[in-house]
């Protein structure tokens, strides 16, 4: 066929051995992204991740809004983990404006961030379960997640998209009986998630599907700059809450779980261990928190920053989350860069999937704790 093609288009040469598969963007097994996979028989020989289907230009939008009106739209990339994505932003603005956060607000922030981390992990765990064909593991986390969503609703007034953190503290104080309710719910939640071990993590079917698939060595994990559960599953003990403690994390006693195997099983287990630690953190924070006091510093309208730049990071549900704020003395940031864990872990996807069997793709892909909306921003 020698028909003339329009400029910019070309016919693709079709190999009779190598087949190209588009996984996504509509297929629910990949989230809102596409992975272009080339297979030779059953084996993946080439992987090309193609994100961007949910790109919203958060960084550009932030340049047009002032430091306070930026808050509601900046949490949109991860509505399930909205406290943690606002955390570095608020820490950065506080540093920029020289604000001192009240003690009670610091503890409430840590509690909200840890509750949010659990909510995110439960959501992720439900999807991970269903894509490995484990329906119970879809139902249980989705149901238990409601416990914490109720708590967050009591705290912030919204089930998701809380917009709870503001520069200088939190938006509002918690209701009077919050401490008791929180302690009771978290204790019950912890009891529930411990049961996941029996049904999911000790399940021989899960172990046979995820053990030794998609192994990321310690050296590669460091070289590729991965973060969060991917990094800690490969034996690198690096948790921003421990290494660069913010707010009151240095006063609380907790571990950052680390495993050595680096396979999909280890990567799927780290978030669950994280949740158990989160329960510990919340209980201790409730005990140590001042029982009363202000929770917010009063700000002038449209505060202006100096001529400086700030890079702050926190540990979110998907790893380190950094915000780079360039201020030029205006009420709006001159440039705001959001460096998210999902985007940093994207590079591990072609590295791990190439050479795997196609059937192992969901196990490897979802174990990367990848959230397409956050990666696209």
């Amino acid at each position, binding site marked *: 066929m020698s028909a003339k093609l329009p400029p910019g288009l070309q016919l693709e040469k079709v190999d009779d051995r190598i087949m190209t598969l588009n996984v996504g963007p509509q297929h629910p097994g990949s989230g809102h992204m596409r992975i272009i996979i080339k297979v030779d028989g059953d084996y993946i020989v080439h992987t090309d991740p193609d994100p961007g289907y949910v790109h919203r230009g958060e960084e550009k939008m932030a340049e047009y809004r002032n430091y306070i009106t930026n808050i509601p739209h900046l949490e949109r990339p991860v509505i399930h983990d909205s406290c943690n994505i606002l955390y570095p932003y608020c820490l950065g603005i506080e540093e920029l404006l020289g604000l001192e956060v009240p003690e009670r607000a610091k503890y409430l922030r840590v509690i909200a961030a840890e509750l949010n981390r659990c909510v995110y992990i439960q959501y992720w765990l439900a999807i991970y379960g269903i894509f490995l064909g484990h329906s119970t593991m879809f139902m249980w986390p989705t149901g238990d997640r409601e416990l914490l969503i109720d708590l967050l609703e009591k705290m912030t007034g919204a089930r998701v998209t809380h917009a709870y953190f503001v520069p200088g503290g939190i938006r509002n104080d918690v209701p009077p009986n919050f401490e008791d309710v929180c302690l009771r719910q978290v204790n019950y939640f912890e009891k529930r998630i411990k049961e996941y071990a029996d049904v999911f993590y000790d399940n021989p079917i899960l172990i046979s599907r995820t053990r030794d698939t998609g192994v990321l060595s310690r050296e590669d994990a460091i*070289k590729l700059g991965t973060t969060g559960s991917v990094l800690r599953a490969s034996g*690198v003990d690096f948790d921003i809450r421990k290494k660069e403690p913010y707010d009151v994390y240095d006063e609380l006693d907790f571990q950052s779980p680390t495993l050595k195997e680096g396979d999909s099983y280890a990567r799927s287990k780290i978030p669950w261990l994280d949740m158990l630690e989160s329960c510990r953190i919340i209980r201790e924070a409730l005990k140590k928190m001042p029982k009363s006091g202000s929770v917010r510093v009063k700000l002038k309208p449209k505060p202006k920053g100096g001529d400086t730049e700030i890079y702050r990071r926190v540990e979110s549900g998907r790893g380190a989350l950094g915000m780079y704020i360039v201020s030029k003395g205006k009420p709006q940031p001159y440039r705001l860069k959001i460096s998210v864990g999902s985007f940093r872990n994207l590079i591990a996807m072609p590295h791990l999937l190439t050479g795997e069997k196609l059937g192992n793709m969901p196990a490897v892909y979802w174990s990367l704790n990848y959230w397409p909306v956050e990666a696209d921003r």
Partner: protein
Amino acid sequence: MHVTARENKKNESKVVFKMSSDENNTNVEKTEEAPPVPEFENPLANLILKKFPSATIAFANTDRTRVNVSKEEIIQTASFIRDELHFDHAESVSGVDYPDEKQIEVVYHLGSYDDPSLSKQILTLATRVPREDNPHPGNDSTKLSSLYEIFPSVAFHERECFEMLGVYFEGNPDNRRLLLPEDWADIPPLRKDFDIKGR
């Protein structure tokens, strides 16, 4: 095109760095007292300045250091930072547009997983490339050597910087679009002259 030590000193006097506690302010004062090779409290800054005298240290706080280098020197500086200072990965690569100065700044935030003494440190390596008013991404003078060979973790970050600001990274194995639609025909959207519609 680059900020020289003297100009930088001038800037520092009016810039108020609120990055960290009081130690920070003493650093800035020290640089003003002792040119041309200022001593910083952060040893990383001194090591880099000793090896690359033409580099400028914008600030050196207890856990954040910023080094400005020329675009010709970025490869050598990055190799030195990896091999001698033991930084092993890039956390983010940001582009910042300065249309008035006709420059685009590329900022690498480098961190270290392997060296526990550096886990709090973020080393900011910044350089500037010329900016053209009518950009043809990939085919104009807005080019920079990629750090892919030194820090493979920059791969996707540099791709994003290319499409968002039009900085072409020579040596990056993959310089295709990443997040923008395939039929995007406007200027790179994070440049300051790209306006959000309706505003």
